[in-house]
């Protein structure tokens, strides 16, 4: 295998870990409440802008930007849950789609209106340049994003499967009424799920802000990436999202390198349709 190819694959894996991180938020909410957040990609976009504002206003790097973006987005998640989701969950299907789609427009164009449509970016060396590992050249910002995203996604999986909070959330996902009879408040659990899901997007956004282009419409592309990841990994499965996220990162990088940068999105979308067609339950889904 050629050396460049290895480089491309490693780059894809690092980006894929970030895809996995924000997609696990989408899959969590979807699996728990059977609601699809069409604003999910725009949450990631907001995380990027929070990191950008932290840098431009306070000169803070990812050490400050990432926790702050996580916090801001987690708060937004809770607000969105109580103000919108709790009610539209019980409503007709059209209301669910419209509600989160409207939210997406609201967020995307508020940012557009405030910051304009220009592509913004962070300074190149904000996380300390590029270094070589075994002959591979790796940007520090990408390595940081990939490693942190991987660890947090694994942590999220452990939280859901190994802790009492996780068990209570899964109980609500299984049967909200039965959980309520056992003394678990579905409202609180679902709000926590929204906080985690949105917090994950905030962190992911802050991490990729260091090397990605920052533009209000980036959420549209990232949202579709999250859908692809979740449908590939199985709705509601965090490990599924992790495997699928890494896979999509690699497929995207490889098709960008082998076929051409403009086709990498097309390849991912077509893959998505292909999967919806042949295996709507995903790679590891259990439906």
């Amino acid at each position, binding site marked *: 295998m050629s050396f460049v190819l290895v480089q491309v694959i490693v780059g894809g894996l690092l980006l894929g870990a970030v895809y996995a991180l924000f997609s696990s938020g989408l899959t969590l909410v979807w699996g728990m409440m*059977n609601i*699809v957040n*069409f604003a999910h990609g725009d949450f990631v976009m907001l995380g990027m802008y929070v990191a950008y504002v932290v840098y431009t206003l306070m000169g803070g790097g990812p050490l400050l930007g990432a926790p702050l973006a996580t916090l801001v987005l987690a708060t937004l998640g809770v607000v969105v849950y109580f*103000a*919108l989701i709790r*009610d*539209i969950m*019980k*409503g*007709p*299907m*059209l*209301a*669910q*789609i*419209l*509600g989160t*789609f*409207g*939210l*997406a*427009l*609201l*967020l*995307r*164009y*508020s940012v*557009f*209106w405030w910051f304009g*449509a220009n592509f913004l970016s962070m300074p190149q060396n904000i996380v300390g340049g590029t270094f070589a590992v075994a002959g591979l050249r790796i940007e520090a910002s990408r390595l940081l994003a990939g490693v942190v995203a991987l660890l947090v996604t694994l942590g999220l999986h452990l939280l859901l499967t190994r802790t009492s909070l996780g068990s209570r959330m899964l109980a609500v996902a299984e049967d909200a009424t039965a959980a309520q009879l056992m003394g678990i408040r579905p409202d609180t659990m679902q709000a926590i799920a929204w906080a985690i899901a949105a917090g994950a997007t905030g962190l992911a956004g802050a991490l990729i802000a260091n090397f990605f282009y920052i533009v209000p419409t980036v959420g*549209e592309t990232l949202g*579709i990436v999250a*859908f*692809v990841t979740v*449908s590939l990994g199985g*709705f509601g499965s965090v490990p599924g999202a992790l495997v699928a996220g890494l896979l999509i990162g690699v497929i995207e990088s490889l098709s960008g390198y082998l076929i051409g940068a*403009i*086709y990498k*999105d*097309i390849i991912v*979308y*077509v893959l*998505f*349709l292909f999967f*919806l*067609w042949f295996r*709507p339950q995903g790679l590891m889904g259990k*439906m």
Partner: protein
Amino acid sequence: MRRLVWLSVVAAIAIAYPLLLSSPFQQRLGALVLLYAIAASAWNIVGGYAGQVSVGHVVFFGCGAYAAMGSYAKFGLSPLFGIPGGIVLAVALAAIIGVPTLRLSGHYFSMATIAVAETMRLIVTNTEWLGAAVGLSGPTVPRNVFDLSFLSSLPYYYLFLAVLAITLLVTWWMTNSRMGFYLRAIKDSERAARSLGAPASRTKLYAYMLSAALTSVAGALYAMMFGFVDPESGLGILISVKILIMAALGGAGLLFGPLVGAAILVPLEEISNSWLGGKGAGLTFVVYGAIIVVIARFQPGGLLSLFTGRRKPGADKGAGHAP
């Protein structure tokens, strides 16, 4: 009887409007309202009546728009040929998209339609033959009346009014036919409808194809009026969103819902654009977003359902859930 009186009043207003309010801005506004009402009414067939929320309807709009401009730019024909051409393209595409995706219910269908629309936009943007990012233009100087290139908006207004009337008639006829009956049953509960012998997949597909055909006509008319089409104006996701919001605001699944939605949102957008200039584009969509969030939260049946008293929130919790 009361309905007939109302209908004639609305028709009379629609016919008299561009003569009473005759400034170019007002006539153009009227034409745009009708144009979007056509597209939103077409969406309503599949999104409102069949309960399949397509977020990628712009692909059919694009079929019509590109067929109209393509028949001039590529073959030197009148853009009018884009109407039948667009319909053929759109119906074929609807069958290709619909057969696999209509099996998926609810959210899955919506996501699949977004992905199809974005894929088409990216492909066309990179296709030199279709003008790539620049798009295709219509006749700059009309050769004859069949080029449908007028300076005034008045001819467009009446053309669009006629097409809207046809669209609404087709929709009305459909809802009263066996197909409309099936669609209502499917929307309430697809499983129940299937078990009682309603051919659910086939009916949804027919509704989707009919909706696609009418949407492509709207696209062709749009391109004729503006004289050009590019990937953003013909295949951009925001067109889908506008169409969908208009129908939902007025009342999805109600015959006149889309017209009401268009009559509110199109003036809102045009006025905010002319007041705020370039900055307005962003703000308009902020307002659009806020409107749909509020509608979804408080009045999911749309504004018209306030008057009809039907479809209270939660009343038709069918359609959704896993495939």
